[in-house]
């Protein structure tokens, strides 16, 4: 049952397919996971406001968001399950050698999933079975466990960037395993913070953009205004913090993975006084100044490393620039929201349509920033699956035919994505609202003889 010596992929096409499949399924999962992290918290917030104020708009929001959580959590959970399978079907040698080193993070994530899934069941189906306060309280473990599971899983990714907590013996087997040192590796604090904030931004902006559309069309009822304001404010508060944390991430990478940093910033040759380049823009000495607070500081360039360990620099640089551009744009939007809100309260001014138009795009933009950030991290780590220790080629499943797996996954996920969006859109229609309420009644009538 034990694998033989490293054999490498069956063919280059299978190797590429395995990487693309991993990237695609992760990219799909991360959007749903972000909503799964943020939406339960928003739902509980709305339900709490309802209990406090008795305002039916809050009640309606809480009910709607709970329903959406139900659908999105299910799709998120099954797409996460695919990832767990893929860790083994695509990267068995990685798991074989290092599974025990980083496994504790996944085990703890598993416990968090359990708590999440149990309370999702209780919360979604318990509206009419539990006293209102108890029901509210059962929402809190979902939100906490969502953030905890994101933390635990990202410790694994951080470990892939900064492997710690083991030594390799003469046969290449791990010894002296210290799972906690692996979990709390140097990359964990910054990656976990950046990721959790990113998830809140993705969720907040996506949910808000759903309500920006009816507001733009002039259906500015209180329900829609609150549905916009609660998630948008959450995301807008996070946006400035995220820029600061992103700066921390950049400094961290420049110290710990200087080759990734050189790729991100497009520094080809080692030089002093490196200019800051962004798309067409160029500020002389800018990068040296930004990074080291010294306009003449030297930054190591890509060509100082052998070609065999350089990541594909254009992809890394482009995706990094996309993330920064969107991060700054969302920061601007957050400021605009603060101004809009202030004018509304001081002068009773209406929310400007231009602001709402921009807000409609914020959800998609945040999701793109999330994908771009992950592309930066993962592609920037290449050719390593475990930075400096194991190459991705040596990790892949040697079986032939992996590419057919990719084709099937692409088709199934395309359909799944389209149907999920279709279902969510139909949930917004008035005709379905009546239907949806009927379901609630049936569910309670199903079991409750009261």
């Amino acid at each position, binding site marked *: 049952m034990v694998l033989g010596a490293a054999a490498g992929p069956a063919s280059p096409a299978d190797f590429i397919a395995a990487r693309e499949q991993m990237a695609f399924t992760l990219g799909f999962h991360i959007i749903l996971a972000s909503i799964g992290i943020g939406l339960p918290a928003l739902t509980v917030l709305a339900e709490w406001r309802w209990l406090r104020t008795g305002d039916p708009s809050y009640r309606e929001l809480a009910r709607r968001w709970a329903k959406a959580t139900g659908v999105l959590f299910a799709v998120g959970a099954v797409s996460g399950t695919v990832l767990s399978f893929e*860790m083994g079907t695509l990267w068995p040698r990685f798991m074989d050698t290092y599974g025990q080193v980083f496994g504790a993070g996944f085990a703890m994530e598993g416990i968090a999933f359990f708590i999440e899934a149990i309370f999702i069941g209780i919360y979604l189906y318990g509206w009419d079975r539990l006293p209102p306060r108890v029901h509210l309280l059962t929402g809190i473990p979902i939100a906490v466990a969502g953030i905890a599971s994101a933390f635990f899983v990202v410790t694994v990714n951080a470990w892939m960037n900064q492997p710690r907590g083991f030594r390799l013996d003469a046969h290449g087997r791990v010894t002296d395993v210290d*799972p906690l040192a692996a979990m709390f590796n140097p990359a964990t604090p910054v990656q976990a913070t950046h990721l959790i904030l990113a998830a809140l931004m993705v969720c907040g902006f996506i949910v808000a953009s759903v309500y920006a559309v009816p507001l733009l069309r002039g259906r500015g009822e209180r329900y829609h205004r609150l549905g916009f304001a609660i998630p948008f404010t959450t995301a807008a508060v996070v946006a400035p913090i995220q820029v600061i944390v992103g700066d921390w991430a950049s400094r961290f990478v420049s110290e710990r993975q200087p080759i990734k940093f050189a790729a991100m910033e497009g520094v080809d040759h080692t030089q002093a006084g490196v200019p800051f380049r962004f798309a067409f823009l160029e500020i002389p000495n800018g990068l040296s100044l930004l990074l080291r607070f010294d306009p003449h500081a030297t930054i190591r360039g890509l060509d100082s490393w052998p070609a065999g360990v350089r990541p594909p620099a254009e992809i890394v640089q482009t995706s990094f620039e996309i993330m920064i551009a969107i991060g700054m744009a969302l920061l601007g939007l957050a400021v605009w929201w603060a101004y809009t809100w202030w004018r509304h309260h001081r002068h009773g001014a209406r929310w400007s349509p231009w602001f709402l138009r921009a807000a409609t795009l914020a959800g998609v933009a945040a999701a793109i920033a999330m994908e771009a950030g992950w592309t930066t991290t993962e592609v920037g780590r290449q050719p390593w699956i475990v930075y400096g220790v194991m190459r991705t080629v040596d990790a892949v499943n040697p079986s032939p035919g992996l590419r057919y797996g990719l084709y099937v996954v692409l088709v199934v996920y395309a359909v799944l994505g389209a149907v999920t969006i279709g279902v969510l859109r139909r949930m917004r229609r008035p005709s379905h609202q009546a239907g949806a309420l009927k379901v609630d009644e049936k569910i309670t009538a199903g079991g409750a003889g009261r």
Partner: protein
Amino acid sequence: MSYADVAVALILVGLSAYLLFGGADFGAGLWHLLARRAAEKDVIEHAMGPVWEANHVWLIFVMVMTWTAFPPVFAGIMTAYWVPLSLAALGIVIRGSAFAFMKIEHGFKIEHRRRYRWAFGVSSVVTPYALGAVAGTIAAGDRHWLSPPGAYAGLLTVGLCAYLAAVYLTWDARRLSPNAATAERFRSYALGTGAVVGALALPGSIVLGVRSPLIGLSALAGLVSLVLLWRRAYLAVRLSAALAAGSVLWGAAVLSDLDLDAAAAHDAVLRVIFVALGVGGIFLLPALAWLYVLFQREAGSHEDRARAR
């Protein structure tokens, strides 16, 4: 008992729970496809709704435990059986999302629901078949999941799931459905599949050379279950049916005789995991119990209501 033994025991507990809870949800998917009457489908949807996601996490638990505690075993199985296991993973995706969509669109468009129903039903059969085939192939020491032992184990797993589901749903129908005939129909499904699965399991285990008292236990519990079903003891039969199905799994585990000690992770790793599970269990087990009790609580209330009318 070494740390590795404890880890094996935990994995077996997880697998058993996945078969008994998650497996029954797959079986329910099969009945949902086969059942003609709306009342039966309603019972299935209402019974599964709150619990299927928690039931599903047992699989995640088993996988994570295996790759952390026995990394070479996980890697070996995943490399050798990546085709059926990928199939199972896709089945899980389609099953779970189709169920969630079907529930949310309840009372909406008929065409949508019909499509989800097929996706839900078919994937509920493919997944346990693939998982069972892999387990059977490993247990029998065979090489290919399409070999006879694989096919046999796949069918047996589907049968066990369908049987467990029918048994559990009989009680749920009595609890949830205003129509007494619904419970009677699930009872007849349970009696039928129970007989078929029993007839499939016993000769198979003899051919495969399972020599373990567990087979006797399974047969006994299976017989008791048929009697209990016949006498309409719907709660008691849940336990005996679970025992009958669980002992098939344990029999297969005995048969496989995997040498796990050599593959085990370092004690330092296992210690951290046991502590994490211990601490997690303090929250998790009461919550899980609450989930099941909460949605089974109004047991019998329909009968009361019917009697009052």
